């Protein structure tokens, strides 16, 4: 059986800087995979490449066995199947929370306003934003922004959700509410690939954890194994540093 998402020998450089250097791994359906690793190890770049926001230099990414990095791919069709949430939420500041959520479905999918609104309200309600529907992004907290951004990404019923360090820009006391949302999605069987610095959360919620180093997957294992007895000296070193910083 083919995996939901297959990353195969992916290469990507920005100028002289090699960011992805032959990265390969799979994500199965209903699986939650966490990418951990130092800054610059290629986590964000990989997620951007999967959503076709950046082109690959070499290698391929397959969704349900079909190469989405092929030249003739309809990028917009892929983006409707893959949701992405960014570190800095990136809600549109001129639109209310509700309109932020319905813009994609209404314009890209042709959903009518009424059903888009109803769906957005229901999702926002479920994630505790029922009273913020009409608010503008700059009038609500970072945690609420990020939860709204997750709802926005869920509106198109994506088959896989990419989360790029979604708690890194948040004040510590707001991290929990966003992780709660992700936990709930994991519980419902959402296929997710997340780049994160929250090791405790990764250990908790992930089916597999990939440790990225210099653009490659250095270690790919279930969390208990990767955090408990890392096979690689680099992994152990990274985890020690994270632990010393009090982030675990």
């Amino acid at each position, binding site marked *: 059986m083919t995996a939901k998402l297959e990353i195969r020998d992916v290469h990507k450089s920005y100028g002289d800087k090699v960011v992805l250097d032959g990265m390969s791994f799979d994500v199965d359906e209903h699986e939650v995979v966490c990418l951990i690793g130092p800054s610059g190890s290629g986590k964000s770049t990989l997620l*951007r490449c999967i959503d076709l*926001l950046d082109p690959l230099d070499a290698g391929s990414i397959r969704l349900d066995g079909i190469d989405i990095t092929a030249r003739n791919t309809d990028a*917009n*069709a892929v983006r409707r199947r893959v949701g992405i949430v960014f570190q800095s939420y*990136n809600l*549109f500041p*001129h639109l209310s929370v509700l309109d932020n959520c319905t*813009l994609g479905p209404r314009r890209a999918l042709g959903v009518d306003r009424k059903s888009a609104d109803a769906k957005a309200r229901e999702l926002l309600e479920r994630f505790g934003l029922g009273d913020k529907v009409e608010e503008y992004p*700059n009038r609500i907290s970072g945690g609420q922004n990020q939860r709204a*951004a997750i709802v926005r990404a869920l509106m198109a019923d994506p088959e896989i959700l990419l989360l790029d360090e979604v708690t890194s820009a948040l004040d510590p006391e707001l991290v929990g509410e966003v992780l709660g949302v992700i936990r709930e999605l994991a519980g419902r069987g959402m296929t997710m690939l997340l780049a994160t610095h929250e090791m405790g959360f990764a250990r908790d919620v992930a089916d597999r954890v990939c440790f990225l180093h210099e653009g490659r997957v250095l270690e790919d294992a279930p969390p208990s194994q990767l955090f408990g007895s890392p096979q690689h000296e680099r992994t152990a070193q990274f985890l020690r540093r994270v632990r010393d910083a009090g982030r675990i």
Partner: protein
Amino acid sequence: MSAPDPQPSGLPGGLPRRRSFFQSTADMLRQEGARAGIIAVVSTVVFFGGGFLLVVNSPNWPRVRDQFFNPEDFRESWPDVLDGFWLNIELFVYSMLTIPVVALIVAVMRSLRGPAFFPIRLLAVIYTDIFRGIPLILLILLLGFGVPALDIDGLPNSSTFWGMVALVLSYSAYTAEIYRSGIDAVPESQRSSARALGLTQWQSLRFAILPQAIRNVVPALMNTVVSLQKDVALIAVLGVRDAVREAQIYTTRTFNYTSYVVAAVLFLALSIPLTRFVDWYVARDRAQRSQTLV
């Protein structure tokens, strides 16, 4: 883990606390304010009074007064100049409505990405380069006299029309650059998240980028409107009977220049309220932004 001191208000060393510091500053400013007011009044009276006396006491003042500020001529030239001024207003309104549309199209053409759109981008670059590079008065002369002379079937033959086209082309080139700076000021991440929703490039621009960009540049656009309001007077070089041309006609007939002052007064009557409005709007916009950016 040691948390930083959560109460930075208690400054060490018995320094004045924040609140009282601001209060005393406010008191100081208020006292300063009264004194500053007096100084402002006195210096204004001296400055303008002195200037006025200097002009009025100059040896040729009586002659200049009769030539430029003659009440008789003011009354006599007023109706014709005012008549001409309506044409200026008409030109102003039409171009004010056309320029933002043309400029936006050019700016969007220039913001399209991808190799397929290269010719469109190139076209936009050529447009802005040419029409920003030619002095407006030359452009008005070239189009206003040139195109009607071609006598092409189906094209309007009026100098006024082509003069206005010149005005629109030139101003649109500048305005397009204003829009473009606003588009460039929207963070790249906004474009990414719009594209990530499956919106096409055009939809991303239309629904995510442009609304933010236009809001960014409204103050700059309004200043352009103020400047446009005066530049419609350049149409007079075509012999079109606008306010300036009417004033000129009166002058050649009577050898009195008061009609020019009439035209100036008419333009001021429009531009001063407009400028005040723009200043007010920009200040309000700035205040609103600083308020919401918590």
